[in-house]
């Protein structure tokens, strides 16, 4: 076997091995998208009930607009931005898109004279900020492909604590969330959402959509206490939803990236096989002409 042919065969084998890996990653990502979606659906009854209860409590509590979680301080000079990125790469532009959006938001806030303290989820985002020497207010890694509620609660508590810290001690006035919304298998888009101060009035959806008044609940211990206890839950859940959405988007992005990698590998294998066949044919042709030439030389001698 000629040297050229051997080189081609080796490259084909190497590309085939890569293709197997990318194909496997594609399949894994596909099944994880569905899992993440199911978990998102499973968490919806909780959100629905929670929103209902908060609305009911808010309509009973005295002067909701003065609640600490619904008002920012007098001066608005510090904001937290929570960016959700991936732990691992090979997901196309997934993390880069979220980071770009967050950078845009940061610039916008800076122009308004607001300082930004970044909170980052996912190793990709953390290393991006680290490399640029940006100090992080919080970093959370190791769960982006399968976030649990406990992870979300940890983040939610940190954010809440920073929000409730008095301004002169470095407390923040608002919290923005940058996550990737999972529209469908083919479309995911980066979204920015303001988490705090809450705008409950806009969040309130009547329980059955028909605009019926809430039942005349008797609150225990009291409407204000119920509200105090439920609003942080609402924040935790908003973070949880964002994490799950982003996880589904991450898997979708990875699936797409791995699909095109597999397609490219197939294309490459096809081209290389052609070239290898050509090389083999050339080798055979050369051998025949050598034999014929040799036989001719013997005959004419």
């Amino acid at each position, binding site marked *: 076997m000629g040297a050229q042919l051997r080189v081609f065969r080796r490259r084909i084998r190497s590309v085939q091995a890569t293709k197997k890996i990318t194909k496997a990653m594609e399949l894994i990502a596909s099944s994880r998208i569905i899992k993440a979606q199911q978990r998102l659906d499973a968490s919806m009854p*909780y959100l629905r*009930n*929670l929103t209902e209860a908060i609305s009911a409590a808010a309509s009973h509590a005295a002067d909701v607009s003065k609640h600490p979680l619904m008002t920012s301080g007098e001066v608005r000079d510090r904001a937290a931005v929570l960016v959700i990125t991936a732990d691992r790469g090979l997901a196309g532009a997934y993390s880069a898109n979220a980071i770009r959006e967050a950078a845009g938001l940061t610039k916008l806030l800076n122009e308004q004279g607001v300082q930004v303290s970044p909170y980052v989820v996912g190793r990709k985002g953390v290393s991006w900020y680290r490399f640029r020497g940006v100090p992080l207010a919080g970093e959370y890694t190791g769960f982006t492909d399968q976030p649990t509620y406990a992870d979300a609660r940890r983040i939610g508590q940190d954010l809440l604590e920073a929000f409730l810290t008095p301004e002169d001690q470095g407390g923040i006035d608002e919290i923005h969330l940058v996550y990737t919304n999972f529209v469908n298998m083919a479309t995911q888009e980066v979204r920015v959402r303001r988490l705090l101060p809450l705008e409950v009035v806009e969040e309130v959806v009547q329980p059955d959509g028909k605009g019926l008044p809430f039942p005349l609940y008797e609150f225990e*211990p009291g409407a204000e206490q*119920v509200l105090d206890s439920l609003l942080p839950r609402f924040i935790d859940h908003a973070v949880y939803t964002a994490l799950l959405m982003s996880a589904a988007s991450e898997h979708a992005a990875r699936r797409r990236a791995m699909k095109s990698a597999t397609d490219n590998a197939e294309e490459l294998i096809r081209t290389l096989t052609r070239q290898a066949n050509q090389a083999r044919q050339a080798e055979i042709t050369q051998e025949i002409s050598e034999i014929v030439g040799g036989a001719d030389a013997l005959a004419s001698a």
Partner: protein
Amino acid sequence: MAELTVAVVSAERSIWQGKAKSIVAKTPDGEIGVLPGHSPVLALLLEAPLRIETVDGVKVLVAVHGGFFSVDSDRVNVIAETAELAEEIDVERAKAALERARQAAGGPDDPEAAAAKRAETRLAVAVGTR
């Protein structure tokens, strides 16, 4: 006979659904029992076992870790951040967690104290059915 339609959901999933005769839960103001025909209530839950008696007379115990429940026209929604049914609880693990948390706990505000309380609730629920 009137019955309660009960749904227990946690942040991550739906835990239990069905018809029940009565429910007993623990709120900051004390224990509250709910029978069919109860007036609308929205109450916070403490870290404690939640007792449900189904229409077949079966007792279901759920360990709820914080949250609230609402009663309205014989529909009861129990919304807990995390909740576990008795049969889902690993007794050995809960015991170990309790032991660990008790040793580490400092004051009442310590997160370890909360962990100990959580483990206690779990154990109470798991043992209650055995």
